């Protein structure tokens, strides 16, 4: 077993243990953070590894969220198939977006993905009869269960979030060490050179974006089932920016960065909002410090300075 794998298993084990040590309030927080971290991991696969700066990932998260929520509320699915539907929806919407958006790059790509996400948000509002627009849908508690496991209760919810997180993290680690992962990084580092090594940039980037969409879709689906609410606010620009901030804070192109970023950002907002209503100011200040002193994020800087083997 390599030290990288040991580190990742250690993080998962620590989160497992945390369940028994944390009071209920923080337990719910960590469950939420783990789901958001899966979303951020997906974002990181596109942005951190492949160099695709998307401003539209809320669309993929919302695709998972709504596919699952509407699957339960309108089609009467049980939680397990609805979750699967959410995962697929995230990947499918990412594929459709990618086929068009990946014809552009750089700033144009940012704008096109932003527009797609905005269209998704407006679509949710437009079909208010089904989605209940801004108000959103509260998923009935009875449906939030897999078999006899009630996912709306604290402990099963925590373990469900941890299971998703662990799977996502280990796949992420495998991906970074695979040939596909290497060719994704090659796109980020030097697209022209990669083309002259025989890689079709469009193809590699589309695959990366679909994997990224599957992560976001899975996170959205899980969020709906675990926390019981499906609303249009999750499709707004804010939810496209959040994973970007998590990834920048934790370290773009690091496997554990998205989780670390989500964890710190979540508690930064949580704690500072206890003292001031201007908690977004605290977030902004933290980001400024980050950009000035550690532009590669916490783990990115750590990798550069000390722990070279950090994946």
């Amino acid at each position, binding site marked *: 077993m390599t030290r990288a794998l040991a580190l990742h298993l250690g993080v998962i084990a620590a989160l497992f243990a945390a369940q028994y040590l944390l009071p209920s309030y923080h337990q719910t927080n960590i469950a939420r953070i783990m789901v958001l971290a899966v979303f951020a991991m997906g974002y990181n696969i596109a942005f951190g590894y492949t160099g695709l700066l998307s401003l539209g990932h809320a669309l993929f998260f919302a695709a998972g969220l709504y596919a699952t929520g509407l699957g339960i509320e309108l089609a009467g699915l049980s939680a397990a198939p609805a979750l699967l539907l959410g995962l697929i929806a995230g990947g499918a919407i990412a594929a459709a977006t990618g086929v068009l958006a990946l014809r552009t790059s750089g700033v144009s790509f940012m704008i096109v993905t932003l527009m797609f996400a905005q269209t998704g948000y407006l679509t949710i509002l437009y079909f208010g009869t089904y989605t209940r627009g801004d108000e959103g849908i509260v998923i009935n508690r009875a449906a939030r269960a897999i078999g006899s496991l009630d996912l709306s209760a604290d402990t099963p919810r925590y373990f469900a979030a941890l299971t998703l997180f662990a799977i996502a993290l280990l796949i992420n680690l495998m991906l970074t060490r695979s*040939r596909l992962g*290497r*060719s994704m*990084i*090659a796109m980020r*580092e*030097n697209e*022209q*050179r*990669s*083309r*002259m*090594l*025989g*890689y*079709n*940039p469009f193809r590699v980037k589309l695959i990366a974006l679909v994997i990224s969409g599957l992560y976001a879709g899975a996170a959205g689906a899980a969020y709906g089932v675990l926390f019981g609410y499906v609303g249009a606010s999750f499709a707004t620009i804010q939810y496209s920016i959040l994973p970007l901030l998590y990834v920048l804070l934790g370290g773009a192109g690091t496997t554990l960065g998205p989780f670390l970023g989500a964890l710190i950002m979540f508690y930064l907002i949580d704690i500072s909002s206890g003292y001031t209503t201007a908690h977004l100011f605290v977030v902004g200040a933290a980001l400024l410090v980050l950009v000035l002193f550690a532009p590669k994020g916490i783990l990115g800087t750590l990798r550069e300075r000390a722990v070279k083997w950090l994946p």
Partner: protein
Amino acid sequence: MAAIILFARGLTKHYDGIKAVENVDFDLTAGQIHALIGPNGAGKTTFVSLLSGRITPSAGTIQFDGADITRLPAHSRVARGIAYTFQITSIYANLPVFDNVALAIQRKGSKHLKTDTMAALARVGLDKMADQTAGTLAYGHQRLLEIAMGLSMNPKLLILDEPTQGLANSEIEAFKALIRAVTPQTTVLLIEHNMDVVMDLADQITVLNFGEKLATGTPAEIRANKAVQTAYLGG
């Protein structure tokens, strides 16, 4: 054994009225080392970019290995066996040396990526530096890495754009030996300014001037060619 692996007919590239490459007919014999020379701005890099697919021609056709590749994108041409190394070193500067070459080798579907990559590095003498970040290599080593990436693809045709630029004399000798060793399995087309290298290595030489083909022939023929002398000496 004089099979033509690649030929171009009427190859032309205009940029807003500037004739970078004008109506060039070109034949490349399989297994040979073919040098492309000409004064600065003669259109050499544009010409090989047309062959490798980095830019699309304004007119003309290109056939490679029996198929018309004129409309193929660059990455598909690479898949057919055309490798291109850049004039300005274009390695993955932030990645380890190992990954630079592994990227070339895994594309060919290698089963033993690690062994094959190390072997390819050993071929240019960079195996000891596999873990080093490519951008921190000395310039000459970066050029060798660039060449190693091209060779790792086991191409049918290897296009080298000024491979010896910035190399020390001892490194040039090693480079020449390396290129001789890959022929005749691989056909080599190289753009080169160093006339000693050209005269020493090339089986055939084509001279470009103002985007047009001035002459083609063996090193001895080119040396004796009046038009070439005029173009070079400005007489």
